[in-house]
């Protein structure tokens, strides 16, 4: 594989193991950092594009004041708002803005599951509170499905023998009470079971649909998600029967559940103070601002100043994207600086190697090596060092970019992005390591031979 001149290079490299190791390490660090930086930025861009192209960010949310900002909080403690209550009737506002393609309701809801941990917590609480509120007690399996379940450990033990009941070990799950256009607007389909029927929206029901990730999470070991269909989940607000599992790939709804929304019923939840959030989606995000303006106008004229909040989630998402992109650019800049410094150093070390090789080069030329052959020889050395370093750098870049993506919350970015990063960084390093080679070919063999 190596001819004699190649062997010279190889044995010199091996003979100067420390120097060669440092060279490879320098390349690895530079390439690793740069590749991680490049892949991070590419990942952020990709993630952001995906995020902003999702239907969730093509809608305007209209809610009564005070609701919209606190959507992330457990809402049950919020004071009841007396003045304005939005209902499905208000979805008719869609008619005033022609750009609106769908109007639907998606209200934040929560399920608090009953399981051993929750029962233990409750029993401890009851011991501390001498008098439980009147009339709140009840036995499981009574006719009103929305009656809060008071569960003791015996009841739980009994329930767990029931084939149709699934005890969920999670503490809680978040979800939405949705009106019928929700699934159409977001393009969500059932991958098992079926979506709600018109009937489900009209009558109170305790049916729920599960996002794919949530379903995955609560599926007992050794079972399929599909086995959840028809199972009753035990929660503080009653039994909830799983009637379908939604294909939530590429959405943020993976770990959510869905229940049918009905005016006044809160979709089967006994949660005072929950206001209804109306969502109006448009086809083109550019129309969001105008739509928000028109809707704001409409609802203000309907309910008066300060009663209704019109928000544009996309604007917030865009801010987040801008922030992440900024951080990504900064990291890329720093990592490219690192790469540059590494490349310059590699170039320098190869340069001093080259100077030490000068006599060798002179002799090689005397023995019949053309300048081109000398260039090939040293390019080969540079390529080997860059190659080995880049390989190591790629290995380094994987955990590095994972960590950075994790820190920026854009996880799930394909590692394939590292490849072009490694190639680009390796290319740059190679370029730099080729610079010293001209040194070898500028002098006459006689002069080269006489250097020490």
């Amino acid at each position, binding site marked *: 594989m190596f*001819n*004699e*001149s190649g*062997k*010279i290079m190889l*044995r*010199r490299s091996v*003979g100067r193991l420390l120097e060669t190791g440092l060279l490879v390490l320098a390349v690895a660090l530079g390439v690793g950092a740069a590749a991680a930086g490049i892949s991070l930025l590419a990942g952020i861009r990709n993630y952001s594009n995906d995020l902003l192209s999702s239907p969730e960010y093509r809608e305007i949310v209209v809610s009564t004041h005070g609701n919209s900002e606190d959507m992330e909080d457990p809402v049950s403690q919020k004071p009841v708002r007396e003045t304005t209550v939005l209902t499905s009737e208000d979805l008719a506002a869609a008619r005033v803005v022609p750009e609106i393609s769908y109007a639907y309701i998606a209200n934040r809801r929560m399920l608090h599951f009953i399981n051993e941990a929750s029962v233990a917590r409750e029993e401890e609480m009851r011991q501390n509170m001498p008098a439980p509120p009147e009339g709140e007690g009840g036995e499981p399996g009574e006719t009103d499905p929305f009656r809060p379940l008071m569960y003791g450990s015996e009841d739980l033990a009994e329930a767990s023998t029931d084939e149709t009941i699934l005890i969920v070990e999670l503490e809680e799950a978040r979800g939405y009470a949705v009106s019928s256009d929700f699934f159409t607007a977001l393009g969500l389909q059932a991958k098992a079971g079926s979506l709600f029927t018109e009937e489900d929206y009209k009558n109170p029901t305790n049916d729920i649909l599960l996002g794919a990730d949530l379903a995955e999470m609560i599926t007992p070991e050794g079972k399929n998600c599909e086995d959840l269909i028809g199972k009753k989940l035990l929660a503080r607000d009653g039994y909830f029967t799983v009637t379908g599992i939604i294909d939530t790939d590429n959405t943020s709804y993976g770990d959510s559940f869905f229940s049918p929304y009905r005016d006044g019923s809160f979709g089967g939840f006994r949660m005072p103070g929950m206001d209804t959030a109306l969502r109006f989606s448009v086809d083109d995000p550019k129309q969001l601002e105008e739509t928000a303006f028109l809707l704001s106008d409409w609802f203000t004229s309907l309910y008066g100043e300060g009663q209704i909040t019109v928000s544009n989630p996309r604007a917030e998402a865009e801010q987040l994207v801008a922030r992440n992109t900024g951080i990504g650019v900064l990291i890329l800049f720093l990592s490219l600086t690192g790469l540059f410094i590494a490349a310059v150093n590699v170039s320098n070390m190869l340069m001093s190697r080259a100077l030490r090789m000068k*006599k*060798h080069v*002179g*002799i*090689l*030329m*005397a*023995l*019949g*090596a*053309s*300048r*081109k*052959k000398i260039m090939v020889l040293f390019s080969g050395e540079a390529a080997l060092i860059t190659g080995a370093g880049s390989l190591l750098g790629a290995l380094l870049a994987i955990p590095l970019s994972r960590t950075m993506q994790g820190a920026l919350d854009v996880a799930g970015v394909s590692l394939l992005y590292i490849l072009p990063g490694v190639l680009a960084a390796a290319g740059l390093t190679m370029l730099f390591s080729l610079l010293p080679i001209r040194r070898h070919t500028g002098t*006459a*063999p*006689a*002069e080269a*031979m006489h250097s020490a």
Partner: protein
Amino acid sequence: MITLSTIGKQYDLGTVKIDALKNLSLTIDRGEYIAVMGPSGSGKSTLLHILGILDTASSGRYLLEDYDITNLPDREQARIRNKHFGFIFQSFNLFPELSALENVMLPMSYAGIAYSKRKDRAAALLEDVGLQHRMHHLPTMMSGGEQQRVAIARALSNDPDLILADEPTGNLPSDKGEEILTLLESLNQRGVTIVMVTHNDAQAERARRTIHLKDGSLLEQDSLQGGQSNLQASGEAIHV
């Protein structure tokens, strides 16, 4: 074989210019054995470098078999050095990273000779110079005389027409130098042209022709008494 006419070589050291060779004309015929003598700094090595296309003259003309090589592309010059010239240096100039065998094989790799073939030939050449038992040794493990014999084997690897030797015995004790000289003489007898720089009068005597350099100029030429048929051009080179 080689005709140098009015060769000049200047080294430009910024403030001073050194004329290493001045107006030098010389003809070398096939089969000659020429000793180059002269005081230190007189331009002997410079002349050898120009002859071997290891350096280019500042002025003048270099004809190799009637071809002007001055403007040949680098690749062609490298090919000529590889196939037609063999170099032997005072300090051996072996590659310390390579074994004796690999050192001898190296020029053959540039000639495109396959690995096994060049290995066989290198082994045979080392045997010719009496080093069959040291083939796999590194140069550092060998005596000066042995190293120089490896260098000779390497110079011979592509069957050169011309051997250029710059004080080949300069770093050797006299008995080892004698061995080298005997080797060179036997090569000349086989028809290889030899140009050898030496400070040793006795060695110069044994050459068929001696040229003297002083301050970069050719002084005189002594032909071996009796005149050989291959020295017919010796007279004409001095007057240009």
